[in-house]
């Protein structure tokens, strides 16, 4: 087991290095000079001497191999460098932004669970009824409608027409908890949109499957109440695959909340990533992508180790 774990860890480190190298290379290959772009804001012609000066100051005049070596050295020391645009430490920016994205994904997942599990359960219990068909159709619709359409509709209806909710934005939780939660509601609903449908479908299928099991029939025969059977026996068994699928989807949302963050002005990780690509802010792009990759790889590693601990066939394969 130890040798297998060490091998997995080494593979994970290799993966992270590969991602860092690919992203570093790609962003440097794309046309566009950060110094030139930085001084060209507003469509004006920058002074070439100022551009040359800035390139030198940012270290962009060094050979690419030297820049790569210095970048790798920084990563090993845990230093992701500083933003080319505003000289802000990349790690600090990630530490500021990542919790906001995780909060958004977490809130979306919570809503998905709170809505998807009860509705999915009800649909399974009323299999073939109008309720089942209507909720099934709604889930299909939620999956089909693009997230930016839902986001824009939410803003239009609740902010512009009804004026119940703020159109978008962000206030730190510590500064104003109530406003923080109100600003979180609509983006969390938008994130939850697709997840609700997934959780609903998985729940419905899993509950139907569990309902047909022998132990449920036995529970009924023992004279347990239907609600006790549902909560204690059916849902407990049905919920495991639902949560596994939800966790997988949450992982993919880490880099997939771009549109929601943009539509609702939620200052998470996606917005600075887009802006950094636009400004060719090399350290910021590589830093953010690297962080997302590390989280993904870590998640996979934990899952692999967990499965291996449970199933010896995996570690001996």
């Amino acid at each position, binding site marked *: 087991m130890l040798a297998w774990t060490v091998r997995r860890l080494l593979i994970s480190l290799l993966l992270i290095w590969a991602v860092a190298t690919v992203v570093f290379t790609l962003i440097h290959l794309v046309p566009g000079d950060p110094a030139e772009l930085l001084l060209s804001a507003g469509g004006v012609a*920058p002074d070439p001497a100022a551009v040359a*000066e800035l390139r030198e100051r940012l270290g962009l005049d060094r050979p690419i191999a030297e820049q790569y070596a210095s970048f790798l050295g920084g990563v090993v020391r845990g230093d992701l460098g500083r933003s080319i645009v505003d*000289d802000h430490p990349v790690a600090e920016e990630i530490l500021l932004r990542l919790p906001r994205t995780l909060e958004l994904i977490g809130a979306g997942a919570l809503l998905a669970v*709170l809505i998807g599990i009860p509705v999915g359960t009800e649909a399974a219990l009323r299999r073939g009824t109008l309720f089942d068909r209507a909720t099934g159709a709604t889930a299909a619709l939620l999956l089909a409608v693009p997230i930016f359409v839902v986001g824009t509709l939410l803003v239009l209806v609740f902010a512009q027409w009804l004026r119940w*909710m703020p159109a978008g934005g*962000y206030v730190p939780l510590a500064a104003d908890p109530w406003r923080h939660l109100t600003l979180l509601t609509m983006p969390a609903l938008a994130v939850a949109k697709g997840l609700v449908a997934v959780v609903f479908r998985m729940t419905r299928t899993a509950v139907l499957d569990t309902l047909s099991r022998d132990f449920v029939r036995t529970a009924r025969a023992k004279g347990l109440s239907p609600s006790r059977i549902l909560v204690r026996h059916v849902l407990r068994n049905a919920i495991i695959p639902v949560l596994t699928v939800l966790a997988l989807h949450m992982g993919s949302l880490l880099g997939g909340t771009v549109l929601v963050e943009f539509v609702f002005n939620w*200052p998470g990780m996606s*917005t600075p990533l887009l802006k950094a690509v636009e400004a060719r802010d090399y350290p910021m792009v590589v830093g953010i992508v690297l962080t997302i990759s590390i989280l993904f790889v870590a998640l996979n590693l934990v899952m692999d180790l967990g499965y291996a601990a449970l199933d010896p066939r995996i570690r001996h394969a």
Partner: protein
Amino acid sequence: MMATRRSVLAATAGLPLLAAAPARAQRQPGVLRFGLSSFPPSIQPWVNTGTAAATVKLLIYRGLVSFAPDGSLRGELAETWHNETPTSWVFRLRENAVFQNGDRVTSEDIRWNLEQIAAERSTAFYRAQAQGIARIETPDARTIRIVTAEPMVTLPLWFASYHMMMVSPRSPTAAGALPIGAGPFVLRSQERGVSLDLVRFDRYYKPGLPRLRGIRMIAYADENLRVAALQAGDVDLIEYVPWQAMASIEADPRLRLDATDGPFMYLTFNASRPPLSDARVRRAIAHAIRREDIVKAAFFGRGAPLEGLPIPPGSPFHDPELAAGWRYDPARARALLAEAGVPNGFSTTILSTAQYGMHKDTAEVVQQHLAAVGIQAELRLPDWPTRVTLGNRGQFDIAVMGTTTENNDPDGMSNLLDGSLPASFVRSAGLRIPRIEELLAQGRSEFDEARRRAIYAELQRVALAEVPIVGLAWRSQGYAMVPEVRGFRAMPGALNFFSGITLEEASLG
């Protein structure tokens, strides 16, 4: 008590409604909420980091002079200024101007600022101009004499720019620290990428100003969300109103739109190879495009055709006949192509960007009109950074560009027309027109207003024939606000991005 599935369902369905009641931001008395188009990447006083940063800079800092709402120059840190000789300008500082650390603004401070801007390692926007200053004299604490190497009638305009703000030499020097300005508002705090909070500077040198207690600037990168935030009551004032929203804002009695034509779209050329090296071909292109279609397609009718050089109609240098010198005339375009030896047209490319709708839409309209006279143009629509790089390297045939001049003086066009300047995506590549360079230099050194008008009329005539760029369309640049916002005004023409300066007079009535 046991939870039934119905009670769980009911509780879940009700959750989103919990937040519905008093969700909108409460307005603090005397604090204006301003919806910015982006979070400023930096608000350093001398570097150009875009127009959102300019609005913030106009709150925190002040220069020697500025532009009044009617576009004329007015005093700021300097109360008077005059030229003693064609190469020497004297500025007299206000007695009561102080930096936000309480220090009085002195002539030595101004000298220090100019020396920093001109320094070898400076990245200041006006570095080249500051390096053209031969000598700075400070005969007393309130007088500064600036001696230039060449006569410079436009020198006061430099000092009105939001890239030429004056800061205290005793500003903190730590990384990321903001220099201390002498503007009407002090930056109290900021949430990176989200908002900036500014409060009134009580010792601002203009009595009774600023009227607001503070300004909260919130960045909304999505233009539609910016409008939604205004309509939802989250903010009081927004910049960069999208053209498609202007009509609905005008129709909304709860809102007011203040828009002027200022920025413009134009074409640049790579004239280093035929057939675009031939002025007749460039002129044919200028006559082949119906500008009204661009205004309609790219700006929802919010703008005006631009059939000459970008000198706005209200300017003393505007000549209605010269301003229509490239009017739509496809027959003339075909004749010019025939005269240039390409009667059946030719194949070429148009560089624009898919990142900004107005650039892409403009390119598409140009492409259609060029096809009508036989010029088959293929569109190249990379992202904006790539488009800038290709433009700077001269790797294009025809390019669509949008910008504004530095100010309303025709010398502000130098950046677009002067081929002697280093290669840049804002002007044509491989195209030097010596007569235009001469006239621009003459215009800069001529102090007599009537003679300046004659110089720029001649410049327009030369440009119409030689076609260093092709003007396409003025575009409307708008601010929208709730009616309670008073005193804020959209500045005219090229000065539109200076409108932030009027926030010192704004109030919430």
